[in-house]
């Protein structure tokens, strides 16, 4: 899967960081960073949680 974040929509709620810390972090500059744009399938459940819990719908996943 490929993870894409629309940074213009990101509102820094940080729920994705909690759901999938292997994939998302908020960097020292205060902006969201995708640590791993193509996470392995064993992270699928965590990424799905990040997608559905994002209050601004900024995260999408393509196969």
């Amino acid at each position: 899967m490929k993870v894409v974040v629309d940074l213009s929509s990101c509102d820094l709620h940080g729920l994705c960081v909690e759901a999938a810390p292997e994939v998302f972090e908020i960097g020292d500059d205060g902006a969201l960073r995708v640590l791993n744009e193509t996470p392995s399938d064993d992270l699928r459940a965590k990424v799905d949680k990040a997608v559905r819990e994002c209050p601004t719908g900024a995260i999408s996943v393509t196969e």
Partner: protein
Amino acid sequence: MAQAVRRVAIIGASLAGLRAAETLRSRGYDGALTLVGDERHRPYDRPPLSKQVLHGTWTPEQTFFRQKDGYDPLALDLRLGVRATSLDLRAKRVTLADGGWTDYDRLIIATGARVRTLPGIVGRPGLLVLRTLDDAVVLRGELERARRVAIVGMGFIGLEVASACRSRSVDVVAVELLPVPLAPIVGPAVGEMLVAMHADHGVDVRTGVTVTDIYGESRVAGIVLSDGSRVDADVVVVGIGVVPNTDWLEGSGLTLDNGIVCDGAGEAAPDVYAAGDVARMANAWHGDFPRIEHWTNAVEQGVHVAEQLLGAPDRGTGFSSVPYFWSDQYDRKIQFIGRARPHDEMLVVDGSVAERRLTALYRRGDRLVACLTVNQPRALIKYRKLLASNPSWDTAVADVTRSGH
């Protein structure tokens, strides 16, 4: 599961209802799935109503979670604009206002809440509330013409409406019953900070007063306050909280007490679940049955009940969640995680109230129970994680010292 589930009905085309439907399908449920909503709109997102929609930066359509064709993969029997009127637990049937009904093997109730209204005040043009998409569209239209708006209730909705009004250069008088708005939720120091912030943006704040009457016959012309003063206004917006939509369940046999009381699986009766604003679900983190009106709670409970209903491997696992909400006012983002009570002690550990940029921790006994940030989103992430472990106050404060705040 004792018997196969072939018919699931979800009452409430809300965030919780939609997330439940999505979860059922993503977990492989392929039976009939009915989603009933009393509004004519497809499920939409509420937080933007008092933010982007009122500010005029979003069209109403941008609040829809899915466009029309986005519902095809969910294969729903989507019944919009129709209210549920009663529940028969024995017959496993929900009766609808259009004369129809839906029978179920499993039921999810996500009927949310509706606004509280001022007692004894008759509705009239210009007397508005903000809860639904239709409410937001009406209010936005009124703000385009209004010169002066009176806001009754300085909760988060009222304060966001005030912010939207001021960004449109509309005059605002904001009225609040409490001496310090929101003090029971965020503490007096932050409540006072919010008052000062709104006053600096030109809001005329009147605290410790109630509305005794509204004048203007064919249309609102103003409000009368308990101190005898009159406030002329073209528009009056009332934001004094919500009540759960459980009227249709009276006499059904479900336990109703400021919401639908349900266990940690979200089950209110055999095969009947509740989620979102309408539910009082046992919450292990809370240690009781809170009714929580937040966005993330609706998502988490919608997902949780769908998983429990299908007999998840962790079936019977109780719900446990740290409540979270946020509010955008002017150039400030206020975020709150946890649960404070009126007499909890608050300690600012970074920034300051004067700067209106801060991280505050809340203490009850020897525990950390909540964290509030203003324009410090990274700190919130840190404390969200910490709060989930129900940490001691000493641990939290030691952590602050260590990280050099």
